[in-house]
């Protein structure tokens, strides 16, 4: 994280250290602790596994970051991943064309995002209620469409998206770096991106200074949906099967990654690169729990506690700077 982006973020623990540095430090300390606690952790295979998981979580959380920057929330990302993956899977199997499947997956995700954006802007339903309703509607559609079936076995070319390597690094990691660059450039360097921050910081002020608030809101929900659609394809390529409950445990970790990454729930402050560090920290925690053979049942509990802690830190630091 450059000093320049850090200086834009109003949340600072002290005046001179960029807040992202603390989060990066936390990730490094966590990794060092795991190195001492487990012999398997520092192996090349496991580290690549951590990176691959981080990439998946980041892709979902990066779109969500934009939504949270506008002081909104998208609770439907997990259900969106499930529906997009199932539709894409059946197209890839049915039409035999991975590219058509990619189009359907990203297209379905984007449409769901536009639907959320419409509920929020046109019907003026609070975003957490609207996307919560969408989450259940999507889950219903997915289960109805799949009818309890599993679709599995995709062409090897498509599967490279999820399991392939380039110069020894998993391909999803390249996708992650690509979208980190796109997301950071969009948020920090484009007019539309700065307008997203403005909408989150003070929608009324943004409107009065000529920002098309509704259109920017529609945009961030559509992007969040599109990223869920894209992530669904990589998950599909990686696990080689699609079923209705695919996205069940993805929403809470994605929200956690954004919040740990320092994006404020109250809008207007945060970075896409912070979300990457958030995704890394959360992935390290889950990876560590797996390596230390802690029952997987503890994971939702741990994620819940982490979400509460992250929001509490957000609020406590805001109070200090106010």
């Amino acid at each position: 994280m450059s000093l320049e982006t850090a200086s834009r973020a109003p949340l600072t623990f002290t005046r001179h250290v960029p807040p992202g540095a603390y989060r990066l430090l936390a990730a490094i300390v966590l990794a060092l602790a795991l190195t001492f606690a487990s012999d398997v952790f520092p192996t090349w295979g496991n580290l690549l596994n951590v990176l691959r998981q981080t990439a998946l979580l980041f892709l979902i959380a990066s779109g969500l970051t934009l939504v949270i920057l506008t002081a909104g929330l998208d609770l439907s990302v997990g259900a969106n991943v499930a529906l997009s993956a199932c539709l894409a899977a059946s197209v890839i199997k049915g039409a035999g064309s991975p590219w058509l499947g990619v189009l359907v997956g990203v297209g379905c995700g984007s449409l769901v995002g536009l639907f959320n954006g419409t509920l929020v802007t046109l019907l003026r339903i609070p975003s957490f209620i609207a996307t919560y309703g969408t989450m259940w509607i999507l889950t219903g559609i997915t289960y109805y469409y799949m009818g309890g079936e599993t679709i599995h076995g995709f062409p090897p070319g498509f599967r490279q998206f999820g399991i392939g390597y380039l110069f020894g690094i998993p391909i999803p990691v390249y996708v992650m770096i690509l979208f980190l660059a796109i997301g950071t450039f969009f948020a920090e360097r484009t007019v539309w991106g700065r307008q997203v921050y403005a909408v989150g910081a003070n929608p009324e002020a943004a409107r009065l200074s000529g920002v098309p608030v509704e259109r920017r809101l529609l945009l961030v929900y559509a992007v969040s949906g599109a990223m869920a659609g894209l992530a669904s394809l990589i998950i599909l390529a990686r696990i080689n099967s699609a079923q209705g409950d695919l996205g069940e445990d993805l929403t809470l970790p994605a929200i956690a990654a954004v919040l740990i990454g320092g994006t404020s729930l109250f809008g207007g402050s945060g970075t896409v690169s912070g979300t990457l560090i958030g995704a890394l920290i959360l992935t390290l925690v889950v990876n560590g729990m797996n390596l230390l053979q802690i029952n997987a049942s503890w994971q939702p509990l741990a994620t819940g506690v982490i979400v509460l802690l992250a929001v509490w830190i957000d609020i406590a630091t805001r109070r200090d700077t106010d």
Partner: protein
Amino acid sequence: MTAQAMRQGVSLLARIPGVAIVLALLIVGFTLANPNFATPGNIANLLVQSTLLTLLALPTTVVIMTEGLDLSIGAVLTLASIALALTVVATGSAALGILAGLAVGLGFGLLNGVLVASLNLPPFIATLGTLGIAQGLSLVVTDGQSVVGIPSSIERIYSGTLLGIPVPILLAAAAYGVVHVLLYRTRFGVAVFALGGNREALRLAGVSDRAMLIAVYALSGLIAGFAALLMTARLNAAHPTAGLGLEFDAIAAVAVGGTSFERGNGWLFGSLLGVIAVGVLRNGLNLAAVPSSTQVACIGALVIVALFIDALRSRA
């Protein structure tokens, strides 16, 4: 003259709550679609099945009136049901089991209240976090298995009758009465309306808004703990995923019932009608052999239709 009559007709129509229209349409639709719907046996069944949702919708109405939300209520209900079942199986005492369920509900309610009122966490994110915690604890405690061997004294609470009326209906009616009195006849109720509408006025009146908000979430948890008794009795077991997602039905019923997510406008009786509307929808779709997951999508659509009608009416 005709214009005046028409205007009167429109204003009369505008005074009929949207939820009554939705409910009437659903009942007429399912009666026409399926001869088995409007039978006494099915109606009785529908009402008994709606009691659990009634218990959840009552506190959800109160929480939403404070411009809050309790997403954890389904997961807390599940954990309370597990605590109840484990205690009953271990001690053989139904009373201790019921107390354990209530304690778990109250504990999580207080936790939610402290997170929201004292630490100022936004309600939807605070209760999303405690949802994860309650769900995780349910899985950890049971290792993903059902708790069985519930004594028949518990099971009879769901299947029994008193003076010819099913016990669940009596319990739900009692809970409705209590929440109605709390909301419309006590200072707590006045505070609830003020928490959603005008928090500053509450503070100026010398009432601790923080304590009242904690009480609201504690009530939500406590009633979820009480509802655990009904759910455990109905299933004759406790299962670590049994109540997950029920918060959606509760929020949907409250939204259909006309309680608004902003400005603290709430209507408890509307929530009861909303519960019956959701119950009728689920029952009618069950008769049409529509799978449960698809019913959820239909409930979501119902909410959007109801919110849309309300948006149109408020604009007109």
